[in-house]
């Protein structure tokens, strides 16, 4: 059974159609790139899978069940924007996560924080933007989830931070779990992807195994992307 199955998912705001008939299966144990230019519908699709948006039609199943408490238990989600209460200290946030998520591992979180030389008693609003993002990533990756959904985790960061983020993802994702990484910066992450999903103007444009695509097209995923999405 697919981890996530989207069947005919449509989403529009008024007359503005964001997602058009998305059919998709996310298998277990894969790192998947959700690739598309800005405004192609990546974030909308991700928010639907996380239960933050309602579909207009179509169904989304996670482990065969509709989006709800059970799907939220197994999905660890990093939104593209800051989403925790910045009045809380890192320690409070860790307690918050471990109170609500059975699969949250505080030890992992503290170990990762130690590497950043962060004082757990510091409040988030005293930290730099980059540090806040790292803390949020640590919280998300410290869960032993079935599916990690990371929305633009490397958007607008410097190369050192990018390496830190990719390292943290690769080191900490749960065995047998899948990871969905949405991005428009493909060359930075393509070597860690098993599969890619190209999304364009709200429709799935191309899906496939990353290495097979490289073989059949003789190009890097980034080049294929540039080719397909040429303006």
């Amino acid at each position, binding site marked *: 059974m697919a981890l996530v199955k989207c069947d005919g998912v449509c989403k529009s705001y008024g007359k503005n159609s964001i997602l058009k008939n998305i059919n998709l299966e996310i298998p277990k144990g894969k790192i998947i790139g959700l690739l598309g230019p800005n405004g192609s519908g990546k974030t909308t699709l991700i928010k639907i899978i996380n*239960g933050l*948006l309602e579909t207009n039609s179509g169904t989304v199943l996670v482990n065969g069940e509709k989006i709800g*408490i*059970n799907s*939220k238990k197994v999905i660890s989600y990093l939104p593209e924007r800051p*989403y925790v*209460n910045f009045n809380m200290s890192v320690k409070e946030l860790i307690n*918050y996560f471990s109170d*609500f998520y059975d699969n949250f591992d505080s030890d992992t979180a503290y170990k990762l924080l130690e590497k950043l030389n962060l004082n757990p008693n510091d409040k988030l609003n005293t930290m730099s933007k980059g540090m806040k993002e790292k803390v949020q990533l640590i919280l998300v990756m410290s869960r032993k989830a079935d599916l990690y959904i990371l929305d633009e985790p490397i958007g607008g960061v410097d190369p050192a931070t990018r390496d830190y983020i990719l390292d943290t993802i690769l080191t900490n994702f749960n065995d047998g779990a899948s990871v969905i990484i949405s991005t428009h910066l493909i060359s930075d992450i393509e070597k860690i992807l098993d599969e890619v999903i190209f999304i364009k103007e709200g429709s799935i444009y191309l899906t496939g195994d990353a290495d097979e695509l490289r073989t059949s097209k003789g190009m890097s995923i980034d080049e294929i992307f540039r080719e397909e999405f040429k303006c």
Partner: protein
Amino acid sequence: MLGKVLKYDLKSMGKSLFPLYAGLIVLALVLKVISFITDSVSAFKFVYNIMFIFFIILVIGGLFYTFLVSIMRYYKNLYSDEGYLTHTLPVGTNSLLFSKVVSSLVYIVLSVIISFISIIIVLGYNDVVSVLKEGLEFFSLCFDMSVFSIAMWAIFFLLLSYICYVLMVYAGISLGNMHSKNKIVFSVIYTVVIYYITQMLGVLLIGIMFLVNPDIMSQLDQAIPDKEYFIWIMGCGMGLNLVLLFTCYFICYNRLKHLNLS
């Protein structure tokens, strides 16, 4: 899970409200100290009066602030960016909503208690209690009930009205967030609309009561109306509030079930 949600709602609102409580108690104690000095140094009388006015403003403002903190918590936790976290917790919609209602009640009760304590510090126990007692005794005569049960009913009625107002704003915010732009403006508009609808229902209810029983109006003019009419009017008021409470709760619940967080 309700317990955990409640824990964090109470904690977060507490961060905003405990400084107020500390301020009230400290100001009350300062006033008390100054009042001792004014007995001997009359120049302090002026300072005392100014501070007393400030104290009264703080008490009334504090209650309003408590209301505001409840509303802000609802908006921030459920409909701002923080909602991305709140709504991806494995928690049911009812737990999220019910916790907000309960924590609003907890803090208004606490705010009232702290206000009372600070007033007692300033004015003295006997004065405050005798004023309260007079009021309650008047109503106990009206309803022909014991002072204790009147006090209980009064508390229940006040809390019910308070939570109705809170839920009205919650419902307004919930409806306002159906729009993709100007959410806050729409939230205010919806809240005002809901408020006027309830006011109209209230007027309508009095009208119906008058039609059913024309004697009611003449009863209202009397200093101490007949007990059964009084109970009737209060009962209708409470009934209306309960209907309002469940309607607003349902609106909030329904909107959270069909969430569209942008």
